[in-house]
């Protein structure tokens, strides 16, 4: 390697040396070179001026209320998400409840109302009408319960 090649090779490492990211062996090799080469030492000094400047850049400060705003925003988002989850769960449970009441209730309804059916001579089509009314009432009760739960939950959240 010629002397000028050596300078170029050494100088190529200066940015990373100034960034403090070279391995100790390479750093030592550069230190040996710059100890005897004033122009490379001066060049390294320039890189170190830049890296030193970068390390000392002032830290921009966020506005003082940003911390509180962020905290409040995150809390509100998480609460809204939790409420969504709770509402979804409530709805699923109510759907199950409605189906269960409807399916299990129908045989009971038949047994209890069998006397009435024979007295009024209710035909098959009317029987289905009763079934539909019964189902609609069950679903209506479930829906009302869901709405009431949701309103109550929202009120509790507002009070909290």
């Amino acid at each position, binding site marked *: 390697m010629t002397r000028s090649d050596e300078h170029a090779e050494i100088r190529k490492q200066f940015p990373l040396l100034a960034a403090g990211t070279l391995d100790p062996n390479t750093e030592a090799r550069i230190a040996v070179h710059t100890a005897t080469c004033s122009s490379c030492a001066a060049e390294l000094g320039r890189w170190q001026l*830049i890296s030193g400047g970068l390390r000392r*850049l002032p830290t921009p400060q966020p506005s003082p209320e940003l911390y509180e705003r962020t*905290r409040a925003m995150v809390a509100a988002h998480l609460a809204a998400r939790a409420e969504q989850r709770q509402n979804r769960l409530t709805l699923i449970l109510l759907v199950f409840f409605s189906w269960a009441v409807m399916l299990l209730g129908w045989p009971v309804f038949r047994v209890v109302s069998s006397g009435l059916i024979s007295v009024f001579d209710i035909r098959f089509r009317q029987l289905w009408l009763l079934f539909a009314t019964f189902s609609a009432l069950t679903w209506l009760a479930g829906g009302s319960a869901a709405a009431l739960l949701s309103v109550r939950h929202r009120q509790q959240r507002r009070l909290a």
Partner: protein
Amino acid sequence: MGIESAVLQLRRGDLDALSTLIGRYQNRVYRYLLRLVRQPAEAEDLFQQTWLRVAERIRSYDTSQSFEAWLFALTRNLAFDHLRRIRPSSLDEPFGNDSPDDTMISRLASADPGPLDQLLARERTSHLVSALENLPVSYREVLSLRFEEEMKLEEIAIVLVVPLSTVKSRLRRSLERLRWILETSVGNEVRE
């Protein structure tokens, strides 16, 4: 409360732990965002989104890894998504590629070192900040992570999701480009 215990508590849904983390990292996260997007209002908006994302995704954080690297990677993703949406041109790659062989050293070798010394001695900070802002975003972020956040190259590689060799070459190129901008601005000032 230490960072590790704050992270564990946040995973259990404790919002006070989030306050601890915000308090600890707010200046650094804000500074990093500001270096990336350059606009304080956008940085503040992204700051809020970052902490919301932290609260939502804390369970996906692998506690065996560095929390800082995870936090900055998350911050970076949000900032880049924002830039892609608002100013896609700001994400254009700088000229050249990340190959370590292609360097700006030759260009710098011809620059007169005198004015640079004078400049850095005189109005170092304002010139540096302005030169930094003229760098492409991929250079600004690597300089910020190394010199301001004092991250190791391995941590930077995690944040940027690139190999270690790419971090090194990008760091060198960004420093070379920064110096070139500084020297060019000095040259222009001298001519004026």
